[in-house]
C-alpha cells in the first residue's frame, strides 16, 4: 500500500479499523476530537458501531459493556477525559476485559491547557484508578509508529485480557506525516474468547465482574492479574536506541515526541564532536528497566539525562532503573511548552561543563 499523508488522530482511527476494531465510543475533547469526527464518517462505511456518549464516565462504562461481547472496542480522549474514565478502567482491569484507550495528552493538572504535554505518565503507568492493577502502556514517537502500535494494542489487549493504553502528546495527534497501512493486518493467533457474554445457550451463565466479597477470592484475582503483569515484563518490553555507542558520554532517556526532538539535538551535538546516545522506551509499562540499567552502567557513560514534557515523572522510573550507578538528572518543559532541540543541546552542554575539572589558575 502506498504512503499517504495523514493527521495523527485520523491515522490512529484508521489503524484501529485495520486491526478489526469497528466499535468506538467517544466524547469530544481537544486535542483528539478529529478521531471522533473521522470515525463518525468511517464507521457506517465499515458497518461498525460509533456512539458519542454523554460523558467520558459513561463512555468508558459503555466500553465495559461492549468489550463483554468479545468484540474489539476502543475510545480516544485527552487528559481530563482520561481521568473520568479511570473508574471503568479499574473495573475492566479487575474483570479482565480487553479494551484499547488512547490518550492524546494535554497539559495539566485540572483543566490545564490544550497544548501537547506528557504529564499523564504517572496516571498511565502506575494504575490511574483504585486497586492492584496495571494497564499496558505504549508510546509512539511518529505517526507511523502510532499506526503500528495502535494495531498492536488490540492484539496485546486480547492476549492479556487487559486494558491497553496508547499515550501520545498533542503533537502526535495534530501533526501530519506520510503513513503506510498494511494491505491486510496480520497478527499471531489468539485463543478463542470463551469468557465473552454471548447468551447462556447450551452452557452455564457467564458472569463478568470485579466483585469478590470473599477476601481469598479477591486475593486470587489480584495474583492472576499480577502474573499477567509479570508475563508482560518478560514479553512486552519495547524500546529503541539512537546513536548509542561506546563513544557516548551522556545517555538521554526520552519517549514520544520528546525523543524525536532529542534525536535532532544529538545530531547537532555530533557536529560539535559531543557524543550522546538516546534510549527511547516504547512500552512505558512494562518499563525497560533492565535495558536502561545496562546502558547506564557502561563505563563510557558519565551522566544520564531524562528529558520530558512533564515534571520529572518518567525520571523516577529511570532513576530507579539506574540504581545509583550514575547521576540521573532531569530536564523538562511542560504546560504545553515543547522544548526545542537547542534547549536540549544547551542542557547537555551545561551538564558537560559541570563535569569539567575546575581550572585552578586563580589561586596562583
Amino acid at each position: 500500500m502506498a504512503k499517504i499523508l495523514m493527521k495523527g488522530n485520523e491515522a490512529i482511527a484508521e489503524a484501529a479499523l485495520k486491526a478489526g476494531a469497528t466499535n468506538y465510543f467517544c466524547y469530544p475533547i481537544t486535542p483528539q476530537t478529529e478521531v471522533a469526527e473521522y470515525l463518525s464518517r468511517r464507521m457506517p462505511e465499515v458497518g461498525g458501531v460509533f456512539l458519542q456518549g454523554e460523558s467520558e464516565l459513561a463512555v468508558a462504562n459503555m466500553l465495559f459493556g461492549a468489550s463483554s461481547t468479545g468484540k474489539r472496542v476502543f475510545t480516544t480522549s485527552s487528559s481530563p477525559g482520561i481521568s473520568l474514565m479511570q473508574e471503568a478502567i479499574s473495573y475492566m482491569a479487575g474483570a479482565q476485559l480487553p479494551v484499547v484507550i488512547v490518550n492524546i495528552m494535554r497539559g495539566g493538572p485540572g483543566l490545564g491547557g490544550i497544548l501537547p504535554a506528557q504529564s499523564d505518565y504517572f496516571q498511565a503507568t502506575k494504575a490511574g484508578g483504585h486497586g492492584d492493577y496495571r494497564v499496558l502502556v505504549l508510546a509512539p514517537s511518529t505517526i507511523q509508529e502510532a499506526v503500528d502500535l495502535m494495531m498492536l494494542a488490540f492484539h496485546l489487549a486480547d492476549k492479556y485480557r487487559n486494558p491497553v493504553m496508547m499515550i501520545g502528546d498533542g503533537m502526535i495527534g495534530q501533526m501530519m506525516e506520510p503513513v503506510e497501512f498494511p494491505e491486510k493486518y496480520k497478527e499471531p493467533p489468539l485463543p478463542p474468547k470463551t469468557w465473552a457474554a454471548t447468551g447462556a445457550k447450551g452452557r452455564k451463565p457467564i458472569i463478568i465482574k470485579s466483585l469478590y466479597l470473599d477476601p481469598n477470592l479477591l486475593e486470587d484475582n489480584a495474583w492472576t492479574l499480577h502474573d499477567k503483569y509479570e508475563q508482560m515484563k518478560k514479553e512486552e518490553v519495547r524500546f529503541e536506541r539512537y546513536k548509542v555507542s561506546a563513544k557516548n558520554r551522556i545517555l538521554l532517556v526520552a519517549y514520544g515526541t520528546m525523543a524525536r526532538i532529542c534525536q535532532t539535538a544529538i545530531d547537532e551535538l555530533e557536529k560539535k564532536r559531543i557524543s550522546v546516545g538516546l534510549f527511547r522506551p516504547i512500552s512505558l509499562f512494562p518499563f525497560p528497566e533492565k535495558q536502561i540499567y545496562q546502558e547506564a552502567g557502561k563505563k563510557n557513560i558519565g551522566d544520564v539525562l531524562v528529558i520530558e514534557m512533564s515534571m520529572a515523572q518518567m525520571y523516577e522510573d529511570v532513576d530507579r532503573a539506574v540504581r545509583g550507578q550514575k547521576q540521573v538528572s532531569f530536564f523538562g518543559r511542560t504546560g504545553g511548552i515543547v522544548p526545542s532541540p537547542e534547549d536540549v543541546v544547551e542542557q547537555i552542554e551545561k551538564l558537560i561543563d559541570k563535569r569539567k575539572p575546575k581550572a585552578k589558575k586563580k589561586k596562583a
Partner: protein
Amino acid sequence: MDRSDKTIFARPEALTDTITHYCPGCTHGIIHRLVAEALDSLGVREKALGVAPVGCSVLAYNYFNCDFLEAPHGRAPALATGFKRLRPDMIVFTYQGDGDLASIGMSEIIHSANRGEKFTTIFVNNAVYGMTGGQMAPTTLAGQITTTCPMGRNVEQTGQPIRMVELLSSLVTPAYLERVAVHTPRHILQAKRAITKAFKYQSEGRCFTLIEVLSTCPTNWGKTPEESVKWLEESLMSYYPLGCKKDPEKPELNDGTV
C-alpha cells in the same frame, strides 16, 4: 379428585436454584421472579444479558440463570448501552435500585432513555439506600427517618424526592414507562404484565423501556414486613402513584414519535 402429575408451579428456568441473601419482607425476590417469568414466557433466556447494580441486588447475577455483567455504581445503563449496540439481537436488561439509578447514575439513565437505547430497566424503589444500611436516597420521602436524616428528611435542605417515571416521561424518545408495586397478589399480577410487556417491546426493537417497582425495606425502615406493606400503601404510593406514563399502544400518553 383428579391427581394427575401435571406441574402447576415451578421455579422459572431463568432463575437459579439458589437461596437469596435478601431480608425477610423485602420484595426483591418477587421482582426477580417476575423478571425471570417474563424471560421464560418470551423464550429469551438463552439470549438474555442482565446488568447488576451496586446496592442490595449487587449479587443478582447469582440468582438469574442467564449471562450477567456487574456494573460500577450507577453505570448499568452505560454498560447495557455498550453491550446492546454491539449485540442488538440479544435481550438486555438492567436491574437497579433508587440510590444507583436516581442518584449516582442519574446521568446514565437519562441519556440512555433519551437515546432510546433498546434495553429494559427494572428500577426498584424502596426510598432508601439498603445495602449500606439505610441512608437517605433521592427518593426518600419528606420527613422519612434514615441514618443520614435521623430527624426526618428535611426538604428545605435536601429537596423533595425525585419521581423517576414522571421525570423520564418528559423525554420524547422512551417507548414504555410504568410504575407498579408488588405488595399484594393483585399488584404482583399487574407488575408481571408490565414487566413482560417491557421485554416484549424490547424484542420488537422498540426504544427504551423502564418499569419502576415500589419495594419494601423492613430492615432499614425499622418496621415489620406487615407494617412495611401498610407504609408502602399509605405513604409511598401516595407520593409515587402507580400507572403508565408512556406506552406505544396508548398514543394519548405519547408526545412524540416512539
